[in-house]
């Protein structure tokens, strides 16, 4: 996360942190009608601008958008032919589970993936089992089943198209999609 993006986010937080209904309703326009100084700060960073606009369509600034929160971890990686959650991802999954239990209206899709090795159908099942293992963990930590949707794409949607371990380890994953 770049410093520039952090700056934009903190500006956004100041603008929308105590958001009123008016700001929410006029959000897309509000972003464009900012004072010239702030508009310039956004002007040359289209990613950041899109970020602010997206944010304003929900209930103001949310924990989900804090790059320093463990909630910013949205991809959980796995070992070969395994659906065991690696220890380094525990805190992220705990944070997502806590967020879901505190925000009962929020739903999330866990999208399971596998690397290309072996058969497509087995990998489809493996992708689901990876998503399933994160779901089970989230349920234990207070999320409710109705908040979590699972989908597996197996090896059909690799993050990286290469045919080597460096690519495969990026592809063995579950994406947490709010």
């Amino acid at each position: 996360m770049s410093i520039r993006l952090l700056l934009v986010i903190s500006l956004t937080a100041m603008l929308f942190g105590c958001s009123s209904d008016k700001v929410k309703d006029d959000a897309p326009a509000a972003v464009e009608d900012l004072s010239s100084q702030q508009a310039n700060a956004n002007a040359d960073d289209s990613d950041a601008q899109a970020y602010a606009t997206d944010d304003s369509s929900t209930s103001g600034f949310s924990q989900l958008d804090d790059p320093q929160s463990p909630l910013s971890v949205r991809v959980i990686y796995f070992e070969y032919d395994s659906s065991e959650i690696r220890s380094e991802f525990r805190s992220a999954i705990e944070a997502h589970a806590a967020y879901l239990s505190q925000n009962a209206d929020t739903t999330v899709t866990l999208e399971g993936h596998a690397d290309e090795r072996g058969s497509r159908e087995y990998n489809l099942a493996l992708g689901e089992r990876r998503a399933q293992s994160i779901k089970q963990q989230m349920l234990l930590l207070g999320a409710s089943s109705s908040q979590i949707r699972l989908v597996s794409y197996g090896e059909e949607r690799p993050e990286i198209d290469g045919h080597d371990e460096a690519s495969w380890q990026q592809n063995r994953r579950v994406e947490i999609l709010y």
Partner: protein
Amino acid sequence: MKVTFKFFIAGLMFVSLQSQAVLDIKITQGIEQALPIAIVPFSWSQASSVAPIDLTKVITDDLKRSGRFDVMDELDLPQRPAEFDAINFNDWRKLGMENILIGNLTLTENGDYDVSFRLIDVYRGKQIAGFRIPAKPNLLRRVAHQISDIVFEKLTGTPGAFDTRVAYITVKKTKKKKTHTLQIADADGYNAQILLESPEPLLSPAWSPNGKKIAYVSFEGRNSAIYVQDILTGKRERVAAYEGINSAPSWSPEGSRLAMTLSKDGNTEIYIMSLHSKTLKRMTNHSGIDTEPTWSPDGRKLAFTSDRSGGPQIYEMDIRGGRPKRVSFEGKYNVRPAYSPDGKFITLVHAVNGSYHIGLLDLSNGYINTLTDAKLDESPSFAPNGGMIIYATTGVRGAQLAAVSTDGRIHQRLGLQQGDVREPAWGPFLK
């Protein structure tokens, strides 16, 4: 979020692909004891015009591709007889030629064609087979494959599988999107036709036993679902779209049921669906992965992949239910089973030292013979005569189709020009 997909189904009219998109077949490794045969260019009744098809070339390519025949170079032919009586047997015997194929292509009064041919045993000086086949213009290529099938069967003792088709999935990537298609083509790669095109993944095409329908998995609805599509009309039906995985369709030998993988009850299990009533019978009950069911040719058993013992292995179970029996023991990773037409073997993906090869499991002794040696081979499918296995192999040029004889001696590479080609399924004998 509402997503609109551009979706296209080939309807009553097939979409013909450009000629460069055919599968290019090369024999990368042959066998030494090939049968010698001479194919005399077929005579053509309208000698002043060009024949509508080069039958001789189609038949020659078929026989060469099988790896079982040594076809005489056309320049070496001592004579070019079109009729039995014109054959000078001594000329052929001197060259050591054992079999010759001669024939005629005739334009009939109504604009159709007659193809006649004779296969002759040179040493006995006798006809082995002789047929006259009437054909519409668009079926001439098929007639050539039928002639290849007859020659193959008469001289090798097993039926040929030249007059068959393969289904497969292609993927084309541009900067912005991927396009997936389900296609069928003749076994020699010609006449490729698109049955379905989708921006979302397609996989696991499976031919109905009569060759008229294809079941497959499509992600067009943002999740896997099983569809059955009529090849001729393009009409299709979504037969399984439960919560979770809907995949791995496999037809029962009589064509009325589909075995499939569903995870609607918590994790992947094998089910059998009656296509008429859509009722489901659950076949497995285990917390591990159970998937890739495939029907034995006699209809009595299902083989499938399960990791209930740790890594994925092949199991067999009785169609009436009961405890599955593990049948693969060699290696830590065996998946994607498919029975040979005689039911005595299962082809599978067999990992050895991190490489994924096509293997052949002998059900009588559990031994797995490794047939291929690339790093990423998958999706093996038997030809209906049991002689060859088509599969997908991934290399530097992406995924391509390849075929290997069941004895491992003949290897073919079927190179499509661009994009990935994967998930081949060899269709049944055409009726």
